[in-house]
């Protein structure tokens, strides 16, 4: 007993157990705060279903068609098909009278470039997937014989230390091995034996959070997207070896989601016989490259972006170039006068000075104006700046078009064209229909811009060699509309000639139209249909036909974004911007920095926590027991009054938790029988997928021009998600390839809003067919990455509606993609955070487009918390926060009836979408109850806390007893 009541022993144990208790309490704290993030890693059921009597009720609301090994095979096949149809053949010159591609099976080839062994499958950020198990080119090129010595030279030999890199301080670097490294090894001796072809892989990375380097990289022009001196040198040496007969041909693979500057393909010191754009290929896409190289698959992809010889030649890049460091954004000139503002998230801005002239719209329109001799075109030579136009792509076969005709119906045109496969290969052809609208005197006077050509329809057709088919494409007449921000303030239709043409690419289409107009270009007028509007009286502008929402015809479309256009913003002060106009290319070209200063009105608008203005609504009910569950309301209309009874059952805390705790999940709620859902990244593959599959970069998806395949891909994507217990995906991304340097281009489809909108709409339909809701992202104007948190984007409403928002519109409209969830963005539109913009979140999204789903913010636990505030977002139509909120997170606003009703409406949307569109409801009948339970790891943590607390209490008690016994002993001990 003496030793048992040792003061030292129990003091030590008390300290040790109390330390353990402190650790466990902290662990419990983390488990509570980061519940959803931890759950996405550890899993764990959050609810259980108490079955009721619902005999005969079919609760398999959504079906998956593949599971287990069949799912794995299905996904691998879809990925491979997607890549196979998306690969774009850019060049296929003849070598000794025979096209360079396809190669004969068994050809002995040498793979050059670090990209051959450090191949790009995926990227960083929300599209990050584990790629270590993906096949290397060596694994995938099963029909070719590879130069092993050269392979090892890159993998483990003298060139193994040369790899692409990214760091915050240095940005993106290419770091290719110079030719001297080759010469210093024996690898050059291996070339002759593998000389059927030298295949050079040019790879470039991209990633979330940072745009690609425009300066400071080791590309020849200082950017990351031009060839480096070492890459150019190697290609020149290969050219010399080709001339000397060591190699028969040189083939380039462009392994990048972002457009590599292709001036080198036209450099006289370099010979490239064939070039393929393969993008980032996903998990099994490398096999498709093999298939294309040997002709098992005939390439049929068409470029989803224009490829330039000079990546800085667009007006958007001209504006970048005028900023310090050729950067996307800059500080307001007087930002230092406002120390209350964060320099990172409140005083950074960027201007979209290019207006609608994004991508090919610029190059083709200026070309048209140059050909037709318009004033102020300036010195512009199309071939100097464009390498390959939008929509371009060769085939091993050859297609002839004939019998082009257009039939007009009330709301659409029906375009027909006969396509003959005149080549020797069975192949596919993407028929593309382009439109030219008239550029009128009214347009010039009212700053309305018109692209000289724009894609309005397409269809892919499969043809055996010698086969012909008549391809029919419907063109909705809404493509004729133009947004007139400065005149009528709505969509207009004008008197004039409208041309519909079938073109092999955008440039070919434009040449058809120009030829039809008598211009001296090599176009085919036979493939052009002219439709003339002449009956509009007065100024020749019809501001009625397209001025009403197609979904809600009572809603008149009017300017909503004057506050994002510095020239119309009421608080502009002396700030102004000159937008690029085809009326005066040289006079409107961005040459100087567009400098804005913060004005008093901007201070008010930038500042977070706008006043909550009561609207006369009354406080809703909370905690009423009506006995309803969301399963009972499945199938009922959104505005069915019974939804109010269900919402009455929720407590304020329930609503707060559902709205604020949306990080990769929506929470379980006993009160309304809502199970938790798990949501995951991302557009190129399911993070935490059980199959490990990822798909190619979205640009490759778009370059397939195959909507049926993209629907299938969406369905496959969803089945992969469901296999991992995930029923919501942060995808697809429909931001714009506005410039070549956008860091997240791999998650977005194209520079063309029509192509992107159509692709994303069918992907969404495919995903939702399996019960996985799609968070369309990032709404809106999040086309660049650097400084994305809080950067203010200034642009005019024509560009916003016609270029930036159109894909979102197509995906959201119930008659098109019918998406049920949307993710907003970190940036601002004008001074206002996008999620806090009522025009964006309510007037356009819901009133004009009829979006019936719910919206979530981008990651609300990152570096944007100071302006991604609950009151600004929820009061303006944001429904959920991708953060770690709580039942008390919205207590500060509980006294506002307006705010309380906004919260209630947000919950209504989330519950409605869950009830009707989520596979998580499979197995839950109207008679069942959903009950919240602790996950296994929560139980473990609570048990550890309890154990530590008990041990601490026992130790402390025994420590106290020991002290008392010790004192008693001292008192009773005889004096020495």
């Amino acid at each position: 007993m003496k030793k048992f009541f040792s003061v030292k022993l129990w003091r030590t144990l008390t300290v040790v157990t109390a330390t353990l208790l402190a650790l466990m309490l902290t662990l419990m704290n983390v488990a509570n705060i980061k519940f959803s993030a931890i759950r996405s890693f550890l899993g764990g059921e959050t609810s259980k279903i108490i079955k009721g009597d619902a005999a005969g009720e079919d609760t398999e609301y959504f079906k998956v068609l593949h599971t287990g090994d069949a799912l794995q095979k299905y996904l691998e096949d879809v990925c491979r098909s997607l890549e196979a149809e998306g690969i774009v053949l850019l060049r296929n010159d003849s070598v000794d009278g025979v096209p360079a591609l396809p190669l004969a099976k068994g050809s002995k080839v040498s793979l050059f470039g670090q990209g051959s062994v450090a191949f790009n499958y995926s990227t960083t950020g929300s599209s990050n997937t584990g790629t270590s198990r993906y096949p290397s080119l060596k694994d995938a090129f099963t029909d070719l014989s590879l130069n092993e010595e050269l392979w090892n030279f890159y993998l483990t030999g003298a060139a193994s230390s040369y790899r692409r890199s990214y760091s915050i301080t240095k940005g993106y670097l290419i770091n290719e091995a110079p030719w001297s490294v080759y010469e210093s090894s024996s690898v050059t001796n291996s070339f002759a034996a593998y000389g059927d072809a030298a295949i050079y892989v040019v790879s470039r990375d991209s990633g979330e959070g940072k745009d690609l380097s425009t300066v400071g990289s080791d590309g020849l022009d200082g950017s990351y997207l031009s060839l480096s001196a070492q890459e150019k040198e190697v290609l020149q040496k290969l050219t010399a070896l080709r001339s000397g007969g060591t190699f028969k041909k040189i083939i380039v693979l462009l392994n990048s989601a972002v457009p590599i500057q292709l001036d080198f393909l036209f450099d006289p010191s370099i010979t490239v016989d064939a070039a393929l754009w393969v993008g980032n290929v996903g998990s099994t896409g490398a096999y498709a490259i093999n298939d294309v190289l040997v002709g098992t698959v005939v390439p049929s992809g068409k470029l989803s972006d224009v490829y330039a010889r000079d990546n800085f030649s667009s007006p958007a890049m001209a504006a970048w170039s005028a900023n310090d460091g050729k950067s996307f954004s800059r500080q307001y000139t007087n930002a230092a006068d406002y120390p209350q503002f964060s320099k990172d998230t409140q005083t950074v801005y960027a201007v979209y000075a290019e207006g609608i002239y994004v991508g090919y719209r610029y190059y083709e329109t200026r070309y048209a104006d140059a050909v037709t001799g318009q004033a102020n075109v300036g010195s512009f030579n199309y071939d100097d700046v464009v390498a390959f136009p939008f929509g371009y792509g060769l085939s091993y076969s050859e297609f002839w078009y004939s019998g082009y005709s257009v039939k007009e119906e009330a709301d659409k045109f029906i375009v027909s064209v006969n396509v003959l496969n005149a080549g020797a290969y069975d192949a596919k052809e993407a028929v593309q229909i382009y439109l030219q609208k008239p550029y009128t005197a009214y347009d010039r006077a009212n700053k309305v811009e018109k692209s000289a050509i724009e894609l309005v329809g397409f269809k892919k057709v499969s043809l055996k060699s010698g086969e012909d088919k008549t391809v029919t494409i419907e063109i909705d007449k809404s493509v004729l509309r133009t947004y007139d921000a400065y005149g009528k303030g709505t969509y207009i239709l004008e008197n004039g000639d409208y041309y519909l043409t079938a073109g092999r690419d955008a440039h070919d289409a434009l040449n058809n139209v120009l030829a039809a107009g008598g211009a001296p270009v090599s176009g085919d007028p036979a493939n052009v249909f002219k439709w003339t509007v002449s009956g509009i009286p007065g100024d020749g502008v019809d501001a009625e036909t397209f001025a009403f929402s197609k979904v809600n015809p009572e809603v008149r479309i009017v300017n909503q974004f004057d506050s994002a256009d510095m020239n119309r913003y009421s608080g502009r002060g002396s700030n102004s911007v000159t937008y690029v106009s085809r009326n005066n290319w040289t006079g409107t070209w961005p040459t100087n920095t567009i400098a804005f200063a913060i004005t008093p009105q901007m201070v008010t608008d930038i500042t977070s926590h706008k006043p909550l203005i009561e609207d006369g609504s009354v406080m809703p009910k909370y905690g009423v027991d009506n006995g309803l569950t969301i399963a009972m309301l499945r199938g009922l209309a959104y505005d069915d009054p019974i939804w109010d009874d269900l919402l009455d059952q929720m407590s304020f805390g329930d609503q707060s938790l559902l709205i604020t705790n949306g990080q990769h999940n929506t929470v379980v709620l006993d009160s309304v029988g809502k199970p938790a859902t798990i949501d995951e990244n991302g557009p190129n593959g399911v993070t935490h997928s059980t199959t490990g599959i990822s798909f190619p970069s979205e640009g490759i998806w778009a370059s397939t021009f195959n909507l049926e395949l993209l629907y299938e891909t969406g369905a496959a994507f969803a089945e992969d998600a469901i296999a991992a217990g995930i029923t919501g995906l942060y995808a697809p991304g429909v931001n714009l390839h506005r410039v070549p340097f956008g860091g997240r281009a791999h998650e977005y489809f194209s520079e063309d809003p029509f192509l992107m909108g159509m692709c994303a709409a069918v992907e969404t339909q495919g995903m939702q067919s399996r019960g996985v809701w799609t968070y369309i992202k990032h709404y809106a104007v999040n086309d660049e990455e650097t400084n994305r948190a809080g950067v203010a984007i200034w642009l005019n409403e024509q560009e916003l509606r016609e270029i930036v928002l159109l894909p979102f519109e197509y995906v959201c409209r119930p008659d098109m993609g019918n998406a049920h969830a949307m993710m907003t963005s970190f940036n601002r539109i004008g001074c206002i955070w996008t999620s806090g913009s009522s025009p964006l979140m309510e007037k356009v999204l819901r009133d004009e487009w009829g979006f019936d789903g719910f919206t979530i913010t981008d990651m609300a636990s990152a570096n944007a918390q100071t302006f991604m505030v609950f009151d600004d977002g929820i009061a303006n139509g944001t429904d959920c926060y991708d953060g770690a909120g709580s039942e008390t997170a919205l207590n500060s606003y509980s006294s506002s009836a307006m705010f309380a009703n906004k919260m209630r409406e947000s919950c209504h949307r989330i519950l409605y979408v869950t009830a009707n569109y989520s596979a998580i409801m499979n197995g839950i009948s109207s008679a069942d109850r959903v009950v919240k339970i602790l996950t296994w790891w929560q139980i473990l943590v609570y048990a550890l806390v309890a154990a530590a607390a008990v041990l601490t209490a026992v130790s402390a008690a025994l420590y106290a007893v020991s002290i008392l016994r010790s004192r008693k002993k001292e008192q009773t001990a005889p004096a020495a």
Partner: protein
Amino acid sequence: MEFSSFFDFKQKNKASLILGVAALIAGIAALIIFQASKSAEFTKQMIETYRQDIYVTAALIAGIVLCGAGLVFDLKIVKYFGFIAYLFAFLNYIVFEVDYLGSIFSSIDPTEITADFVAMLVLLAAATVLALISGITAAETAAAAKKEA
């Protein structure tokens, strides 16, 4: 009795005293820096939703008080509780900055480590370790003294 006379430095362990003072100063410095720097862009949610700043502040104050008391009163368990309070502050400061740390380690947005953060880590770690060693040193000295007696 474990109480010693007030400010009877001769009978106290000098090493423990110095370490205790250092822990006290580190804790006070950490508290000052924390109050000055806590409202950063990454921590708004932690402050407004979870009041995590209060845990850190309270634990730091408790650590400071207990360290101070450990200097005044020769009650070794108080020194140890000073250590535990500092440890709790340290751990909860990590939790407080979890979004910031997540951003750094995920390397998505280019977030860099700030001087405030480094100073807090160093001071909290120092306060915790110093308080612990102060307690251990005091206990060992007392045991040696008892043995001598």
